[in-house]
């Protein structure tokens, strides 16, 4: 077992190196050996994926390796593309290696020639023709799937970036995000990863993906290799993987505020309906922003002043959507509105308290004995009805 773990460690190093300029010094022999190694680990994957204890030990070993690497090179060192992060990754070790070398402009001449020789059918391979053709076939399948995605993309709508394609792309990335969080070696590492991504990626798009990931139904973990059923990996990758995401979001007011500001109201309401902690946070934010609206006497409308530039329409749409959600969220939203209305003095006349007007809009404005006072003025709302305090 120890020997196996040691080999795993070495190979992880080789794989990491294949994408660096160090691989530029590799010759034919190095490429051949590393491919042979990858094949061996693929074999290990195939042999032990159904054997709980060995698999668990290997997974533990991989986790150890990653922690060790992070201690050396700082967090997220294994975040580069094509690294060995999970037991499932072993099943694609040869593919990762081949793609890493092909992608690496430093690998040239005889080294690359050797790699390409492995992709041709008539190469003699004394130690296992099946594995050889395996890599070839899997790369060809990859090319075929890529072409298939290109073809099907045309069906998701006209033009180079069809409208219907967006949800599909987002969903795919959301699934990868959940998978990635699941692969993190220890509790807490997820937050570091999410911090990095928050800084690194374009905001609106990234938050769309985060939202999608939170909204994904708990699903059986998608198989990494369709041709190889992997019973060991059939854990749920929904809510459990979303937990660190939720925790991170709640700990990052700026991210929460951006979500609350940018997400379409129905999506915001779906998120709130799915996670009560998010519902509370969103309602707090909306209440806070709503309090900053002031009534423009000339235009007869509520206008936003805060840096968040929240409009009356946006506020109204959000509360409308919240009120269409299941009872608990609806009640919570109404409770917030009513609390704030009370705080504002429970005026019944329009134009005095944004909360009164919102409740009125939602058809929920029924403070006892106030119905007669709540008649809206036409152009000039009841700013003159100041005496109507209950």
């Amino acid at each position, binding site marked *: 077992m120890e020997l196996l773990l040691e080999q795993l460690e070495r190979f992880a190093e080789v794989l990491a190196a294949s994408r660096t300029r160090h691989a530029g010094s590799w010759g034919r022999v190095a490429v051949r050996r590393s491919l042979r190694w990858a094949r061996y680990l693929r074999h290990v994957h195939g042999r032990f994926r159904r054997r709980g204890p060995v698999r668990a030990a290997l997974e533990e070993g991989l986790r150890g390796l990653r922690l060790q690497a992070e201690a050396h090179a700082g967090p997220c060192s294994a975040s580069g593309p094509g690294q060995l*992060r999970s037991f499932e990754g072993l099943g694609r070790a040869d593919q990762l290696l081949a793609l890493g070398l092909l992608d690496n402009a430093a690998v040239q001449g*005889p080294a690359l*020639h050797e790699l390409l020789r492995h992709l041709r059918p008539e190469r003699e391979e004394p130690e296992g023709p099946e594995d050889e053709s395996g890599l070839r076939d899997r790369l060809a399948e990859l090319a075929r799937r890529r072409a298939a*995605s290109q073809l099907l993309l045309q069906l998701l709508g006209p033009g180079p970036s069809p409208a219907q394609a967006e949800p599909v792309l987002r969903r795919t990335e959301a*699934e*990868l995000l959940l998978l*990635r969080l699941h692969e993190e070696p220890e509790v807490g590492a997820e937050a570091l990863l999410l911090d990095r991504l928050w800084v690194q990626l374009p905001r609106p798009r990234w938050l769309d993906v985060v939202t999608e990931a939170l909204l994904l139904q708990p699903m059986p973990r998608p198989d990494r290799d369709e041709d190889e059923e992997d019973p060991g990996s059939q854990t749920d990758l929904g809510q459990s993987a979303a937990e660190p995401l939720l925790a991170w979001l709640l700990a990052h007011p700026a991210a929460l505020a951006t979500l609350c500001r940018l997400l379409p109201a129905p999506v915001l309401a779906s998120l709130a309906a799915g996670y009560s902690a998010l519902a509370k946070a969103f309602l707090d934010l909306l209440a806070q922003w709503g309090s900053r609206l002031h009534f423009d006497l000339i235009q007869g409308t509520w206008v936003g002043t805060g840096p968040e530039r929240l409009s009356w329409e946006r506020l109204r749409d959000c509360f409308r959507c919240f009120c269409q959600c299941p009872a608990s969220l609806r009640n919570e939203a109404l409770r917030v509105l009513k609390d704030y209305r009370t705080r504002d003095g429970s005026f019944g006349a329009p134009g005095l308290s944004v909360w009164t007007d919102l409740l009125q809009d939602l058809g929920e404005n029924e403070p006892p004995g106030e119905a007669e006072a709540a008649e809206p003025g036409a152009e000039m709302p009841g700013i003159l009805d100041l005496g109507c305090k209950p």
Partner: protein
Amino acid sequence: MAQDTLDLPLNFKFWLNKAVAWGQATTFESQQDVCLHLPQLQKFLQQIYETLKHMDFPVAIQRFPLIGQLLGRLCWNPFVIGYDENQKILMWCLCCLYCSEPRNPIELEANIWIRSLLCHLLSSSKLGPNEVGTISQALGYTSPDYYPKLLKNMVLSLVTELRVNHLNGFSIRKIIPDRPVKAMSLLCVPLLTLPDILPLLEALLTYHGDEPKEVLCSEFLEGVNEAFLQKKIALSESAILSLWLRHLPSLEKATLNLFENLISRHRNFPQEMECFTKDSLLPQAACHPSIFRIVDEIFRNALLETNGTSEVLTIIQVFTRCFVQAFQKDNQQLKFPLKSYFPYASSSLIMVLLQNPKDLPIGRWCQHLNYISETLQKIVEDQSIQSCGNLFEHWFLFIHFGEWADIAAEELLMLRAESPAALLWLLAFYYNPCDRNQKRTQTMVDAREAHGCIMKLFSRTPLSVKDLQAVAGESSEADTRHPYIQRLMRHLLLNFLLLSPEGHKIAQEFITTQTDEIANEFLNLIAHTTYRWRRLGIETLRPGKLARDLLQELQCYRTKSVLL
């Protein structure tokens, strides 16, 4: 056409022109043209690779100066890359051209170009069609992680869309008009055998537009059927039913394919025949009367064209058995009366023939056979005033359930029949339906005589091959009996060989003296008899083992004689 000639340079020019004309296949017409040519293109690419693999870059460029242009264009055409093994062969070709140690700027350039094309095919540097790669890459994933998931979600999205559209079929506003559905089916043509898109294939096959006109393109329908027949894809029963209902050529092809396979490969192995027939999904699909009637029509033609060869009879019987099983299994929810499958036959006859012998005690078989015989005789006697076509229909129906004829032959030899005449009539009708009344009387006389001769053999000990040959009419100079009677006689004789201990001793010797054709007929009969015994669970009562041994010995003998 290009593949007609083996002249590679000429082909090369043809395909280069095609590649230029196709571009990235953006119009429906060019897509159709690509789909039409994909199988030939694959053959050509294989040919090119076989040539290239023996050359290095300079020689290859000398021989095919425009190879770069051809490969480059093809690599950028997703129809070409998506089809079957094209992407694999193109990758091999590119790998062949790579120079291990480039000696001049051209070779250096070529190396860079080859690498970029390979990266493009595998998209390891640039993920996704738009700028979507950034997030996957930031997460540390590469194309093998990304594409399977992307494809799955695309398929899911399209399937959902088709289903919603289908449910809204009668509403005023449809989400997808029929034209894009046609385009969708065409785009699937190169991808048919890619397992990821199977749900989309099934959703398309069960999708119907609101016009009676076909909304799927014929290339798609033919391609799906072909892939299914070659067992490259596994479709659900409902999808394949939908395909055959909407595309008649596919159904015909599937039926002919079943025929060819059963005759060429599984002739003497009834169990294999049954498995293969069930796997074809034709009996299950035939639970829909429209499918059954078309398949049956093909059977009818085969029967007429071959003058009722035993192989064709067997295929019809195996198919019917599988169909009845599927029908009875299916019929709990279903739906169609038996009459809709056999519209020309009398309902009472259908009901008696449909009776599974397994569900009757053995002692009542004769009674049931008598009943079948009576019913048929009544119809045939009525026939004298009706058309010959109607007589054929009843005989054709009887042929489907030929197992009862086999049982009749067996019962005749076991002397269990109270009225052998009725059973002999049934057997005679099975072998010769077209007799007019007078002729039938003669046939019956011949049949009775044949039966009598065989029965006498039981008391003869020791029995010799000569005795058998005498009964079979081989010792006389010319057997004047009608060929139908000869077949009937052989059927009875075979049962004698299996059922009498004396007969069994010399069975092999006797059969090996026969002509190939007749020996084959015997072999076929033995195989089907043993299989029937096993199926009906009566093997222990019969000399089943003896029959199996005989079958094995004869098969060995025949294989040897064929080899010699």
